[in-house]
């Protein structure tokens, strides 16, 4: 399989506060890759750096062989990376449909809008029912679905999800993970950050463990799930 | 107060006191007097904007209230100007405190502060024009009650000059005391982070209102004094004060004591130099405001400090 994303020796900081120290990470086409780590380990910073919200201090990021570090977020979206933040990710004062329209803002997605709509409505049928409602009036779970759907509208090759289960009830979380698998089966590569280690490890192919801005562990999901350190710190065993 | 700071103030006071020896011409004295008025205006702006970041775009109105009350009331009530001067100052202070109180309790954002205070300024202007029989509208008021009636025989400009520097130095000393006290600490915390400040026990509303009170009091007081000094006031005098104060404040640098002094000096000089140009000066002040804010936001003092190195360092407020 080809590498779709590769991160080489990346350092990132907020002001003078270093958050990522020499991160190396790669994602192959078609995979679901999970990043685990405690609060403050630098997971969100990593995702923000990939999506261009934050510029890395040092290091390189390649997407499909092209160097993307230093590009602004809107160009990175155009290349095929969609980032779904843990909170937000929707325009509350626009209708569900308008939010999905904004998802097709990138030129190449505009032509395939109908096809894509069909896919996301099949993935999250509730959004079809709510399509004329203002996004701000949706429930927490529906908002999360909309933010993922919006990101999918732009035909991403790589979908980056920051804690999709954040703040959701367990039942909704299970549905969401099913959807994530379905998105992956349809051909989209996924990079996922989760605190909900158990469920995330069941869908992921491989995982990285981040601590204090460093990758301390990597491997396929089974190895990671059976690692004594992970068991103790993330699985509560 | 540190010793160095006292010595410095005594020297500055001495210089001010001796200036009339060199600038004895009454035109020059008038300039010096205007300089002190401007310095005082900038100093009071500094208290409210520099130290507590409350945007008051109605300084002209606060000065004007003091001025008009001091101009109108003594004759109408038959009371001595001495008594009315503090009444005017307190009225300004009351209104300033009220604006500060409502806006800090409602936690208005800068945008709303800007619109609220400038609306107030416009209302003041409109009222002055509308209440023609009291204020004389555009024609203004000629003031007959002089605060220094008994001393008028002497050199009027000179007498006012010493009265003004006495006021200035009294203000500077009080200002210094406040900034270096517990209140000054509260001001700094509020500028840094209002929310964090409230969680360590600082009553943010109280201190903001306090700073508005002090500053508006000074505005009103100086406004009244200006009316008695000038013996004539009209609405246009209070129109561009805000711009002038802003220019002076940024010129000198906010939140410092030297800032307003230097800023007012530079401003008086520039506006005197520009005087031959006539009404176009406003255009130049507009451009000056833009340039200053874009490129010299930290103030002239900071830039000077960089150039003169350590010289100003000892003046840095202790604490």
């Amino acid at each position, binding site marked *: 399989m080809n590498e779709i994303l590769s991160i080489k020796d990346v350092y990132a900081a907020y*002001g003078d506060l270093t958050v990522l120290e020499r991160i190396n990470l790669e994602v192959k086409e078609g995979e679901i890759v999970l990043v685990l780590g405690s609060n403050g380990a630098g997971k969100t910073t990593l995702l923000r750096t990939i999506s261009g919200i934050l510029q890395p201090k040092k290091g390189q990021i390649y997407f499909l062989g092209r160097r993307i570090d230093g590009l602004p977020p809107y160009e990175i979206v155009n290349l095929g990376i969609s980032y779904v933040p843990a909170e937000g990710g929707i325009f509350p004062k626009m209708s569900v449909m308008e939010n999905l329209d904004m998802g097709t803002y990138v030129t190449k997605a505009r032509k395939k809008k109908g096809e894509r709509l069909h896919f996301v409505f099949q993935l999250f049928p509730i959004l079809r029912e709510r399509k004329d409602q203002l996004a701000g009036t949706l429930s927490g779970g529906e908002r999360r679905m909309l933010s993922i759907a919006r990101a999918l509208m732009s035909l991403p090759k790589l979908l980056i999800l920051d804690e999709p289960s*954040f703040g959701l009830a367990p039942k909704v*979380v299970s549905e969401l993970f099913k959807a994530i698998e379905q998105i992956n089966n349809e051909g989209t590569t996924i990079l996922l950050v989760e605190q909900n*280690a158990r469920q995330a490890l069941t869908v992921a192919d491989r995982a990285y463990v981040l601590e204090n801005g460093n990758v301390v562990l990597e491997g396929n999901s089974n190895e990671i799930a059976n690692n004594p350190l992970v068991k103790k710190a993330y699985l509560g065993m | 107060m540190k010793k160095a700071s006292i010595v410095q103030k005594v020297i500055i006071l001495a210089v001010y006191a001796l200036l009339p020896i060199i600038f004895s011409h009454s035109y020059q004295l008038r300039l010096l007097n205007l300089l002190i008025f401007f310095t005082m205006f900038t100093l009071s702006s500094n208290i409210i904007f520099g130290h507590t970041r409350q945007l008051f775009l109605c300084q002209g109105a606060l000065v004007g209230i003091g001025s008009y009350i001091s101009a109108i009331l003594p004759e109408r009530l038959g009371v001595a100007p001495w008594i009315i001067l503090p009444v005017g100052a307190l009225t300004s202070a009351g209104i300033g405190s009220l604006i500060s109180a409502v806006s800090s309790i409602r936690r208005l954002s800068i945008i709303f502060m800007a619109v609220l205070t400038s609306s107030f300024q416009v209302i003041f202007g409109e009222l002055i024009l509308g209440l023609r029989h009291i204020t004389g509208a555009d024609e203004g008021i000629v003031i007959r009650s002089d605060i220094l009636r008994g001393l008028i025989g002497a050199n009027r400009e000179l007498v006012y000059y010493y009265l003004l520097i006495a006021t200035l130095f009294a203000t500077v000393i009080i200002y210094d005391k406040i900034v270096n006290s517990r209140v000054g600490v509260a001001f*700094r915390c509020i500028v*840094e982070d209002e*929310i964090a400040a409230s*969680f360590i*026990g600082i*009553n943010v509303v109280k201190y903001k209102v306090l700073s508005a009170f002090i500053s508006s009091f000074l505005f009103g007081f100086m406004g009244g004094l200006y009316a008695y000094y000038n013996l004539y006031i009209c609405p246009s005098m209070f129109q561009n004060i805000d711009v002038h104060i802003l220019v002076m404040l940024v010129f000198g640098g906010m939140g410092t004591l030297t800032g307003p002094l230097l800023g007012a000096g530079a401003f008086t000089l520039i506006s005197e130099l520009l005087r031959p140009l006539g009404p176009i000066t406003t255009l130049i002040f507009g451009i000056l405001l833009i340039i200053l804010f874009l490129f010299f936001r930290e103030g002239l003092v900071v830039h000077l400090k960089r150039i003169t190195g350590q010289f100003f360092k000892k003046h840095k407020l202790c604490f």
Partner: protein
Amino acid sequence: METILRGESITKKFGGFTALKNVEFNIKRGEILGLIGPNGAGKTTLFNIISGAFPPTAGRIFFEGRDVTGLKPHQICKLGIARTFQIVRPFNNMSTLDNVLSGALFGKDAVSDLKDAYERSLSIINFVGLEKKKNKLAKELTLHERKMLELARALATNPKILLIDELIAGLTPLEVQETMRLIGKIRDELGVTIFWIEHVMRAVMGLADRIIVLAYGEKIAEGKPFEIANDKRVIDVYLGGGLIE
């Protein structure tokens, strides 16, 4: 032991979203009470309500038997409840000493004399181990030092109870050890009661006398650390709905 702080069916709604639902708690004087739960469980919201950032939608807070619901932050602080923030907010352009000094000048039993305040501040700076950084600007400190600074500033207000919002996240193992020792010292040497939000389970388990678990705005468990560690519901909810095995 006597109760110092008590919450009576605290409910908080933001628009249609219920952040807290009928949460009850009870802290005894001299206790370290841990507060844990998944992200978005409402932990920080609870702290915000106790410290006066906003009032609860329903319910009451009692401090030393007195109803303090709806008081403003500065009033709450003056009564003897101090807090730290999850995302630190020291006064960045002030020195370490001035930061702590501002706490001493305005908190409970505020010292109005600058000299006395200096002394109190210095001893607190020593207590948290920042004596070498006392003249540095807060923005020049490391994250750990800034967290210690915020703790020091809160302590300078002379609180009876301290609400700590995530002190350990993002620290190195060595710093974690130091911080845990310090929290113990605050209780034992200064006699300050502690209400403590933390994500690092090991730390809370090791130090807290009792633990409350919040999830989706509701209290799902309360008890001694070992009871919490073995509570089926806590393991389920805190670590996710499904199971691998």
